[in-house]
């Protein structure tokens, strides 16, 4: 009731600028350093890759207007869009692509997130074909490679000429993207000006400001005061916003999964019956409804339903404490056992989920102790296999089922690679590799579905849900939609209209 904000009053500081926000300052504006979401989103405004994603996660042409796979997906030829120039007026040529990728792969850049380019077979794997085409030879066939190239780290930069070292370029970036860099006041705001020559059509708005607003409550207040164009609604505030401002809300299923990694190599969790028992013991729809305001789709697999290979019709682990107890007894734990459930202390919403899971496990005799640590400590422990159960979430890097299988369940991804449950199954491994080499989309997605189902049966996780994103869009804004993938929104079609 305190949030009294009349439509008229909210138009307060109209102007023509769009205002977006990040929760913390980007690392840099250098694509080579884009390892986190704020950096990746900002790089997406300034730069382009050969390919890119639209707000719905579809792969669309970027700086390359067409490409083709050769040799069963082991070689790719990308043809550059003609007439593209960098913000400083220089013309984009194929040599820039090679130089950009080599720069990311160069250890001196200290980029860190090099995996999207690692499938390329070294320096010799990149062939510049004149000014307008470039070919990549991979170490092995990889059907999703064109999606890797839409990642911010694979953006094309003008090298040399970006000027000086990485730190310098990261402060004054020059790209080909829809927005030109204007100013950056650290921890305060970034300013971008429209690139009138953008190959994809110049942005409709004159400028875009990105403010750094760390506190969710403050973001809500800023939005209601008309000083942010859009705002993401925290799960805990869903009901309030739905009641007060239903007209402003947009929702979209996110490419994200919430789960509890059950360490398949620790104690009682080694036994698949115990892991299945845990899945039966927890009433996921109930927790989803009460703790997350129903903003999610119960997971019966790891691949979100919005992606090819996602399956909502799979027969799931029904909430059934009797079955859970029976499975525990069969595994030799008729009286349950004690175990640790780790969660990140900084994420309040996941904290409530941890409590609910703890309470429900107690009903079948599993005494879970909730261990709350800061995100960095928890990540280290989980990567080193020191957590029994760890409440985690996984966001898509690229919209493809592979992103929910290879990092999460392939044995090559143990620990730091993303497989925090240390699930290991040679058949799964080889099926994943087979899928990665299958260039036919329908066949590949059928394989994803099969792999996801196979893993689901082994229950390496306590499967929770796929969240649904909820955003409020200010009534003065048109042409914006929720991106399912962090780098799917370029703000080119968004603009302010005078509110009536």
């Amino acid at each position, binding site marked *: 009731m*305190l*949030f*009294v*904000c009349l439509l008229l009053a909210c138009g*307060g500081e109209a102007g023509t600028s769009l205002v977006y926000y990040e929760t*913390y*300052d980007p*690392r*840099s504006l250098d694509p080579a*350093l884009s*390892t*986190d979401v704020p950096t990746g989103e900002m790089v997406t405004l300034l730069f382009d890759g050969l390919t890119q994603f639209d707000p719905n996660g579809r792969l669309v042409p970027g700086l390359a207007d067409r490409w083709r796979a050769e040799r069963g997906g082991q070689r790719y030829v990308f043809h550059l869009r003609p007439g593209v120039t960098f913000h400083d007026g220089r013309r984009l040529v194929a040599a820039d692509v090679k130089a950009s990728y080599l720069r990311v792969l160069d*250890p001196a850049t*200290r980029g*860190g*997130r*090099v*995996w999207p380019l*690692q499938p390329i077979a070294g320096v010799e794997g990149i062939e510049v074909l004149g000014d307008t085409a470039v070919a990549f030879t991979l170490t092995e066939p990889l059907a999703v490679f064109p999606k890797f190239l839409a990642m911010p780290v694979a953006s094309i930069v003008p090298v040399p000429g970006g000027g000086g*070292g*990485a*730190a310098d370029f*990261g*402060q004054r970036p020059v790209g080909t993207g829809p927005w030109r860099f204007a100013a950056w*006041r*650290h*921890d*305060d*705001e970034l300013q971008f000006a429209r690139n009138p020559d953008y190959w994809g059509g110049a942005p409709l708005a004159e400028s875009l400001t990105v*403010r*750094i*607003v*760390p*506190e969710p*409550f*403050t973001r809500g*207040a*800023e939005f*209601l*005061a008309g*000083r942010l164009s859009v705002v993401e609604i925290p799960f805990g505030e869903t009901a309030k916003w739905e009641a007060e401002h239903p007209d402003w809300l947009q929702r979209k299923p996110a490419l994200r999964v919430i789960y509890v990694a059950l360490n398949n190599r620790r104690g009682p969790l080694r036994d698949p019956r115990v892991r299945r028992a845990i899945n039966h013991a927890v009433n996921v729809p109930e927790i989803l409804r009460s703790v997350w305001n129903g903003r999610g789709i119960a997971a019966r697999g790891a691949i979100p339903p919005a992606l090819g290979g996602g399956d909502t019709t799979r027969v799931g682990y029904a909430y059934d404490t009797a079955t859970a107890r029976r499975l525990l007894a069969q595994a030799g734990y008729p009286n349950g056992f004690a175990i640790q459930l780790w969660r990140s202390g*900084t994420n309040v919403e996941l904290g409530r989920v941890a409590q609910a899971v703890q309470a429900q496990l107690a009903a079948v005799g599993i005494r879970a102790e909730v261990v709350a*640590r*800061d*995100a*960095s*400590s928890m*990540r*280290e*422990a989980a*990567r080193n296999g020191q957590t029994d159960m760890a409440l985690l979430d*996984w*966001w898509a*890097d690229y919209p493809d089922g592979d992103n929910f299988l290879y*990092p999460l369940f392939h044995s090559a*991804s143990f*620990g*730091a*690679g*993303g497989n925090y449950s240390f699930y290991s199954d040679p058949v799964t491994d080889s099926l994943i590799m087979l899928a990665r080499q299958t260039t036919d989309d329908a066949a590949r997605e059928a394989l994803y579905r099969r792999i996801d189902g196979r893993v689901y049966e082994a229950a390496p996780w306590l499967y929770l849900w796929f969240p649904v994103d909820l955003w409020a869009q200010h009534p003065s804004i048109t042409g914006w939609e929720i991106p399912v993938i962090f780098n799917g929104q370029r703000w080119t079609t968004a603009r302010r209209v005078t509110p009536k």
Partner: protein
Amino acid sequence: MIAFIARRLLSTIPTLFGVLVVTFLLLNVVPGDPVAEMVGERADSATIARLRAELRLDDPLPVQFGHYLWGVVRGDLGHSYITQRSVLGDLAERFPKTLQLAGAAMLLAASLGITLGVIAAVRPHGVVDRFSMLLAYVGVSFPVYWVGLLLILLFAVTLQWLPPSGYGGPEFLVLPALTLGTRSIAFLARMTRGAMLDVLSSDFVRTARAKGLSERLVIGRHAFRNALLPVITVLGLDVGNYLTGSILTETIFSWPGVGRYVLQAIEKRDLPAVQGSILFLSVVFVLVNLVTDLLYAKADPRVAYD
């Protein structure tokens, strides 16, 4: 005086060295891996190993510390692992903003707090006294973030008089300064009232009144000046605290100061940024204490340094 300052500054060197050692050891004891924060999710162990080696994180601790110390001696606080920017440059960008916020909060606290305290002491148990002490009680008890959120709700969302958060003109400064200053206003008011009541009942005040001085002169010149020492102590401590960053206030109001910088650095295990910031802030704290000591002598001629 100069000799005193020089001596005090020299004596801070061992203190700062101690701060460096303790920070360094603590950062190496806490769990969490700086390289894991650099590479983000989904990393490969080869990249992690390479980065660890490049950052010399696998060197023995004394070697790492010696390397860092050598940099500090040359005035180089290193570069952030995360942003690759110079730590000193980052601090130089943020410190003026923290200074601005701390200054505004202190100005508010000193003017309001001391005034309330003096008025309360002049008419003890009067209406102003009761009111200001209630206010002080409330101000000391309320948590900072709660005050901040309420102020945003009232002045930014409901009344729309002020922007909810951000950095800019004076209108952006009001709410965070009030939030940060609330505790100080309350504390200073109580402190001043107590000190004034002590002084007002002393012999020299009675003498001053007996020789016919106006009440204004008695309070303003004779009593207040003598009540100032404890007030300066409190002010000095608060300034020190505010200048070293007020994480909660800066976070709630999106204020780009050093508090948030340090918090972010700690979360990301950005060792050079954390170490550099703590060293820098220790220097600030030491300097503020020095200034406070000098102010004692200014306020009370009986305090002398030589």
